[in-house]
């Protein structure tokens, strides 16, 4: 059994003492930022990236992945206890989770959320392991032509399935692609749009861009809104859910896991779509839909399972094809490249310990999360008492130091400042910055593959349609775009994404 061998190899990597430690650091940081509203995983991972440089590739990815799914756990704690979603993925958990807390059932709600997440995480790990091999085998047959089409599909699908206006997000993708080609052109050695700045010769670093647009711009926008955060005061007793609770929650958990796993693989599926879909499904299937919104335990179990499964399966396109499905995965690509690993299907065969180690670490990480979240929930809740007026200057400082640390240059700090101002502008005009980050990371790959494909075909663009796999991938793009133009689909999408 190749699969079994692979998982065993992965487990042996993930169980190494130092990797277990990095996994623990990752999930603890993840839970912390998940609990705290106002800091998301994107700026946190961007902040830590420069310091993963000295680690082994597997350790660094294990830690960064831990931050990502740890944040999902932490986010639901805040959602249930304070009715403020710590992360976008836990918006739905607020509805019934907080209602349960109000009825004095905060303990079971937290426990069910954690158990659902753990269950989903375990199943998703197996799904990743199962899907990775055939996908990677398929991807090995790809030439520059197919790869270009795949990148195009990834970018378009990410935009269509994510939040916000499709046309504006597409424009943001192109803006990101344009920023991605800044720097020395690899083929001719000519400096492009560097404006004579030597620090730009290697291209725009995405860490300052991500921290400026996601970290600092968010802070500025947050400070404009009046602060409303009620302090939690609830005794947490009876963490263990009753047998009836478990019985009611289990089917929802399974359905949520399946929904999350399927949607997570899709580009753009990431964190937001799975929990919403799962909640809608549970409500439709329930014998008495009116219970939803009044503390239905299925309304916690389903979405929680879905968001965790989705978070994990969104690693599949990254690990097998080397394309990120959302802005966070784009940062992971950045982490790989910092380690000198070119992301793509070859990573699976060349660095099996890395890929399978990361996959197996998700399971150990989920186990750790279960332990650090349930008995220690009180500790996390007390973190909520840190007021925002102290939190945000600290975040600003850490962003500055982290950005400076990438290459010890003050230039990156100025770049981050510029991106923060542009990011603030984007928030004001209501445009999502995430597609820009995707474009920025994928820009150089897209250009390189397009150039190679064009060289192969002697400048004939029809090559993308004569290669069957490529034509199929581009066909999906066309179908998606046409579907977006149809008013019925548009309305459904608005409903599904409405918060």
């Amino acid at each position: 059994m190749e699969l079994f061998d692979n998982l065993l190899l992965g487990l042996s990597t993930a169980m190494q003492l130092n990797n277990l430690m990095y996994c623990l650091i990752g999930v603890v940081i993840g839970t912390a930022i998940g609990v705290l509203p106002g800091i998301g995983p994107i700026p946190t991972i961007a902040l830590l990236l420069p310091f993963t440089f000295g680690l082994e590739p597997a350790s660094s990815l294990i830690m960064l992945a831990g931050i990502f799914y740890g944040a999902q756990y932490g986010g639901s704690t805040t959602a249930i206890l304070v009715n403020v979603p710590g992360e976008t993925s836990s918006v739905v958990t607020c509805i019934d989770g907080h209602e349960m807390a109000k009825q004095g059932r905060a303990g079971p709600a937290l426990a069910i959320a954690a158990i659902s997440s753990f269950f989903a995480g375990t199943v998703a790990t197996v799904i990743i392991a199962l899907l990775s091999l055939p996908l990677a085998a398929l991807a090995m047959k790809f030439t520059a032509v197919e790869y270009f089409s795949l990148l195009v599909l990834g970018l378009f699908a990410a935009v269509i399935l994510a939040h916000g206006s499709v046309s504006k997000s597409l424009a943001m993708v192109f803006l990101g692609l344009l920023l991605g080609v800044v720097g020395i052109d690899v083929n001719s050695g000519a400096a492009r749009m560097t404006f004579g700045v030597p620090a730009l010769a290697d291209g725009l670093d995405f860490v300052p861009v991500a921290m400026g647009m996601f970290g600092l711009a968010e802070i500025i926008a947050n400070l404009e809104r009046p602060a409303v955060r009620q302090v939690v005061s609830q005794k947490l007793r009876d963490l263990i859910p009753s047998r009836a609770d478990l019985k009611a929650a289990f089917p929802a958990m399974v359905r949520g896991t399946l929904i999350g796993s399927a949607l997570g693989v899709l580009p753009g599926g990431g964190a937001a779509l799975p929990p919403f879909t799962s909640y809608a499904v549970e409500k439709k299937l329930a014998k008495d839909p009116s219970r939803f919104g009044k503390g239905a335990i299925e309304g916690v179990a389903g979405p929680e399972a879905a968001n965790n499964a989705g978070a994990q399966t969104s690693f599949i396109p990254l690990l097998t094809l080397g394309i990120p499905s959302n802005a966070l995965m784009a940062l992971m690509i950045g982490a790989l490249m910092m380690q000198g690993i070119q992301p793509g299907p070859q990573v699976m065969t060349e660095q099996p310990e890395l890929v399978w180690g990361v996959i197996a670490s998700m399971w150990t990480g989920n186990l750790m999360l279960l332990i650090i979240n349930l008995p220690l929930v009180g500790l996390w809740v007390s973190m909520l008492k840190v007021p925002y007026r102290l939190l945000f200057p600290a975040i600003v400082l850490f962003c500055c130091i982290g950005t400076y640390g990438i290459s010890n240059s003050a230039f990156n700090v100025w770049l981050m400042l510029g991106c923060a101002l542009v990011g603030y502008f984007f928030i004001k005009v209501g445009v999502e910055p995430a597609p820009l980050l995707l474009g920025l990371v994928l820009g150089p790959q897209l250009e390189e593959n397009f150039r190679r494909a064009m060289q192969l075909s002697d400048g004939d663009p029809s090559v993308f349609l004569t290669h069957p796999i490529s034509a199929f991938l581009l066909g999906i793009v066309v179908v998606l775009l046409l579907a977006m133009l149809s008013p019925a689909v548009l309305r459904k999408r608005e409903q599904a994404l409405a918060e």
Partner: protein
Amino acid sequence: MTQRRFDWPDLLFGSFLVLVAAGTFAATWKLSGGTAANMGPGYMPRAFALVLLAFGLFFAGRGLVSRHAGIERVQLRPLVAIAVAVGLFAFLVESFGLAVASLATIIVAAVASHESRFFEVIVFGISMSAAAILLFVKVLALPVPVWPW
């Protein structure tokens, strides 16, 4: 939101894209474009800029004809305070060291919020600077001067 003459978010975003596209053309006009089979360094930037130009004109045009949305008022205090705090850090860190830069950044950033209290910010700033030096310089070995001397 009040009725406005234009759809300001669309108009501003569109104009922004047009500006970026124009800037790209200006910055790459010396680079050779080449042909599709043998691309020069200017080929892709100009291709992307063309798309951005089209998007920009579309949004700007749509913003001019439709008339609903305004933009939430820009509050200067957080914007300026955070920008100055980050700028100060970039300006101070290499010549005055991490200790001074961190303290300055925290104090100026705190001005962004109405709720900040003077003594609390000073104490918090000093302890955060100490923590930052410990974490980044001592533990993570970031090569940066700590003191101005």
